[in-house]
């Protein structure tokens, strides 16, 4: 099966050469910030896994390790007032959109200080103040929502765009096809970003999709579709910038098929018996952080010492987030019955 994955054929040197070519025109600050964010996600997720194993995080917990370049690259291409909406594997998108590690970790811990007040958990992070619209846990369910958010931007005459992330398994849902049809029919500024990590839970894309060239599915709706190297943060950023321009200037949707790979299981309870260790290791050779660190180092953008300092800083930030989450109070029991209705109807005078 390895032979069938063309991305695995490419040498590390060739990949570095490609990434170096993409550095052109990007200032040092931007590049370091991109690396910092990817590293923050990596360390955040590693600690999430630890906390999960210690029983401090409950329920389902889907980690993003291996896919960092996708969320970080794509979200770096939009403004703070643009919208991001995604699936249940969303810690990275939340952090990339500007949510604090504290509020995300506290939500994982089910604490009152979490971004959703402890009512959403790993799969339902929200932060209105930074345009992060969730955190949706029915596969493909966020795709019509994103389409509606983009519809609202057009209706209100703003130039905001919407990034909608989903896994490749969502492409088999009707919600995907219904949304793309509406988006092009009504010319909506929505960018559909398919994170093709090659497995829907334990089912490989080969076992689930009759025609696997996802970017070409865009053509069925007369939408521009593009394949993007999801292990190269700059490739994702570039492709997203093109799509953002199409959305902002011309109010048109785009479908990006971003080819990536998750190094961890589907969730924390995944035994991983549907793929070999060798396969995972082959993909780990393409680790987006390793690649980007090498590129930055070899181009003299950042020194070895600076890379180490960055790692120290990130580890401290994650440690602070863990401490904050640990020390935060649980939600008040009264919170059980709040936020059900925006306009609750008070009971009429009791007949008792």
């Amino acid at each position, binding site marked *: 099966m390895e032979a069938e994955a063309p991305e695995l054929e490419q040498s590390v040197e060739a990949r570095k050469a490609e990434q170096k070519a993409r550095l052109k025109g990007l200032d040092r600050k931007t590049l370091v910030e991109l690396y910092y964010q990817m590293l923050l996600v990596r360390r955040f997720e590693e600690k999430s896994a630890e906390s999960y194993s210690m029983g401090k995080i409950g329920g389902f917990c889907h980690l993003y390790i291996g896919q960092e370049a996708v969320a970080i690259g794509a979200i770096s291409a939009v403004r703070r007032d643009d919208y991001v909406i995604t699936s249940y594997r969303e810690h990275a998108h939340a952090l990339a959109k500007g949510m604090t590690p504290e509020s995300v970790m506290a939500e994982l811990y089910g604490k009152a200080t979490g*971004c959703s007040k402890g*009512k959403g958990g790993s799969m339902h992070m929200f932060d*209105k103040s930074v345009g992060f619209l969730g955190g949706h846990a029915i596969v493909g*369910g966020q795709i*019509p929502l994103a389409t509606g958010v983009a519809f609202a931007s057009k209706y209100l005459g703003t130039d905001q765009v919407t990034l909608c992330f989903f896994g490749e398994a969502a492409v088999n849902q009707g919600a995907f096809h219904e949304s793309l049809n509406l988006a092009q029919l009504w010319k909506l500024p929505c960018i559909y970003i398919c994170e093709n990590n090659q497995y829907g839970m334990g089912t490989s894309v080969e076992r689930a999709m009759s025609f696997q060239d996802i970017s070409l599915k865009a053509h069925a709706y007369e939408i521009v579709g593009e394949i993007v190297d999801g292990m190269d943060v700059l490739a994702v950023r570039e492709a997203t910038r093109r799509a953002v321009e199409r959305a902002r200037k011309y109010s048109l949707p785009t479908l990006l098929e971003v080819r990536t790979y998750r190094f961890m299981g589907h969730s924390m309870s995944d035994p991983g018996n549907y793929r070999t260790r060798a396969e995972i290791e082959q993909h780990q050779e393409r680790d987006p952080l390793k690649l980007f660190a090498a590129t930055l180092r070899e181009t003299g953008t950042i020194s070895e010492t600076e890379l180490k300092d960055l790692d120290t800083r990130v580890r401290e930030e994650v440690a602070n987030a863990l401490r904050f989450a640990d020390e935060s109070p649980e939600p008040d029991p009264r919170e059980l019955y709040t936020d*059900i209705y925006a306009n609750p109807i008070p009971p009429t*005078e009791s007949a008792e």
Partner: protein
Amino acid sequence: MAVITIREALNQALREELQRDKNVFLMGEEVAAYQGAYKVTKGLLEEFGAQRVIDTPITELGFAGLGVGAAMVGLRPIVEFMTWNFSILATDQIINSAAKMLYMSGGQFKIPMVFRGPGGSAFQVSSQHSQALESWYAYFPGLKVVMPSTAADAKGLLKSAVRDDDPVIFIEQERMYGQKGEVPDDVDFTIPLGVADVKRAGTDATIVARSLMVPLALKAAEELEKEGVSCEVIDPRTIRPLDIDTIIKSVRKTNRVVVAEESHPFCGVAGEISAEINERAFDYLDAPVRRVSGADVPMPYAKNLENLAIPGVAQIVAAVREVAYL
């Protein structure tokens, strides 16, 4: 006060709310150019334009979810299902997105939105186009469920639903669009959600009826009056949240209750109302609460079978006689 049909009352409510707030828009299948499959949206495209009165493809999950997304960022969508039967395709977005968004976002994202259209039994369209789904939607905290039975209620409740900041399931009865009633002309005439209406006062038995069953319950009350049985008819109008207090107040007075509905009996709204009465007013009951429900079968096509599947005045009268031990 003008005397108009329920269809016209709904049309007025939509027109007035579209006039009042630019963030209100209407979308659905055939709502614009075709003027509405049931003509509820007649003339609205002409007045408000294609940007606000929007024909959708037949893609219920897609446009329902699109509406929820638009509501997340400040619009106030009115999504029409050509009939509620088709909403079944959109339930993921109604239940998992609209109903739960406010809660799971810790109060950050309200969904000020109306899902509306005709529901309940229609005329001879068989099983897939003739069913009552209110118990489904009323099951979910986060949704409000409204079912008007008169022209005035239709207008006043729809206007309140559009102004409400929560997702409202607004079920119009397909057979009742042509029924006429007096409706106030005031553009700010609204009826609050969550308040039941005593459609007829009485002392001997309470009939709780909604939607299609309200006019039938009133006819039953008239017949029973001739026998000297005075019935109180209560229309909850809003199924969730249910104004149980108005019902309990009546039960304490009459001590006998019939709950009439056209929906299937199993896991239905009448069962819920019956349970509430048992829990809150058991000691006031002189007879077990009696349900009159639609037949527990998919709706048949043949006229005679269809008539057997939907409760009529005779069944309601019989049930009242039963609880009154007559």
